[in-house]
């Protein structure tokens, strides 16, 4: 589903991502972990088309997408969330999804003039159903800026799903959440995977990622130092070293 082939991104002399290769299989939850500054977010930004790689290739669904712009990637089925929430605060909750909605779905709906005369009731209805999955249906007409932190995180996830992606990139979705919210997020990520979406999950919260991920890769200083099932990765000596420091 997603293949990174010897991917590198250098910022001046800093090798943020240094020759990383990954192979994420269709329908799995793939975890990406590593200490701060190990290049996880840079990888997401590279895949999502916000940054151009210095070298290497990105392949989505057997298609080379290296160098494509973000909006083109969304059309190919790659959606993402952000580490620091980036919603459209001055738009209503449902409009946040409206903007991100899959193009095909819009084309399937009625022509624009009758929809407008109707106050876009059908659009709001349809998006209301999307919002139900995230438990935000009752906030449909509120401004996104007025939501609580947890609700904003859920809305951002819903917005990514509105694009009907094949590959979902989640950049630290649990940051700032309490235990209860994390448990809910765990269920939600599994539900997304079960609906056939491949998930690339970046997370600092070890409990969550060890529980939910099918496979995990570990980054340190821009390089992949381990890859495998959660238990294998946890036992890996280099991983322990990266997180805990060298034994004396």
């Amino acid at each position, binding site marked *: 589903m997603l293949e990174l082939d010897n991917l590198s991104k250098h910022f001046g002399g800093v090798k943020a991502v240094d020759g990383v290769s990954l192979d994420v299989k269709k329908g799995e939850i793939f975890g990406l972990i590593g200490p701060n500054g190990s290049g996880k977010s840079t990888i997401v930004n590279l895949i999502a088309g916000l940054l151009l790689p210095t070298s290497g290739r990105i392949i989505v669904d057997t298609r080379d997408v290296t160098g494509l712009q973000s909006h083109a990637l969304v059309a190919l089925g790659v959606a993402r969330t952000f580490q620091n929430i980036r919603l459209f605060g001055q738009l209503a909750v449902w409009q946040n999804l409206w*903007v991100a909605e899959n193009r095909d779905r819009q084309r399937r709906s009625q022509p624009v003039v009758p929809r407008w005369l109707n106050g876009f009731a059908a659009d709001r209805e349809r998006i209301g159903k999307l919002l139900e999955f995230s438990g935000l249906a009752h906030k449909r007409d509120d401004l996104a800026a007025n939501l609580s932190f947890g609700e904003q995180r859920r809305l951002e996830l819903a917005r990514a799903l509105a694009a009907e992606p094949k590959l979902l990139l989640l950049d630290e979705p649990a940051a700032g959440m309490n235990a209860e919210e994390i448990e809910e997020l765990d269920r939600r990520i599994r539900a997304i995977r079960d609906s056939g979406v491949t998930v690339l999950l970046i997370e600092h919260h070890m409990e969550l990622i060890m529980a939910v991920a099918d496979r995990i890769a570990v980054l340190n200083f821009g390089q992949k130092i381990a890859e495998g099932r959660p238990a294998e990765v946890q036992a890996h000596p280099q991983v322990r070293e990266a997180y805990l420091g060298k034994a004396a």
Partner: protein
Amino acid sequence: MDFYLGLLQIIGVHTLLGLSAYVVLLTGQVSLAQAGFMAIGAYVAAMLTVLAKWALLPAMLAGGSVAAVVACLVGFPALRVRGLILVVATLAFGEAVRLFFFNFDYQIAMGDIRVGPLGGEGFRQIRYFPENGWTTFQVMVFIWLVVGTVMAALWWMDRSRAGAVLRAVGEDEVAAQSCGINLTAVKVLAMTAGGFIAGLAGAIYAHYTTHIEQGNFNIMVATFAIAYPILGGLSNVFGTLAAVVFIQGFLVEGLRFLGDWRNLLFGALIVLAMNLRPGGLLDARTTAALQRLRILARDPAAWRRVMGQLASGAAFSGAHAAVRRRIESWRGSPGA
């Protein structure tokens, strides 16, 4: 009477100018090129009616279209820059247009006079309205028909998905991109639409003043163009209209009796208005309040409930108790 008709004409043209900047501002771009697009629309439309003897409406549409094409072409390079650099780039373009018309001569003989633009002298004898016997009143009505059409179109655009997309781009470009929005297309389209509206404003302006010159499209006009939507607020098109009425109707004309002191007060009042209403004259809260009123007006039960709450909350003072009794007497409840 003619004074007020003239004032309405000015307000109409400036509303169009402000709306042209409104569309562009929604995407978060500040453009000082709107006066330049207005100049292009003015010269093109005037040349078509005076030199080519076109009818007004097609000439206006042609003027708007040429301005739109130029705006589209300006939009592409302007996309590469943002923030202050974009302001400077568009300012430079606006001035380039003005200086082009400062040097632009194209006169032909028409009977015993020569007509057409003549550089610094300007373009005189744009006599479409007097030649066709339009009264000032008719011209005013015509201008407001155009303004009304443009406002309705933008209101519709604002309420449809396109409006949400423009605002999304204005709020967060990176997030908008990641939602599948093509930034280049959206920004260039906004610029093009803004150019078309500014071109229409110019075309109308040229015909009602009958004489245009490069100085009519200077940096001051460009500044006004972006000041209207900013002062009026970006929640909807009526904010821009309110700001134009406030500035052109009240500050520029209403305070004329103050003589030279007017300009001092003018600046102070704009600063005051922006401090009192930082989100614009018609900000999101006002719009929401108006929306609630509209819903209330449709629902008599809710209306009575709110009035009842108002009355009971204020029942402590004698005056308000009297109001309450009166309301209750309207409702026909016992104890009135």
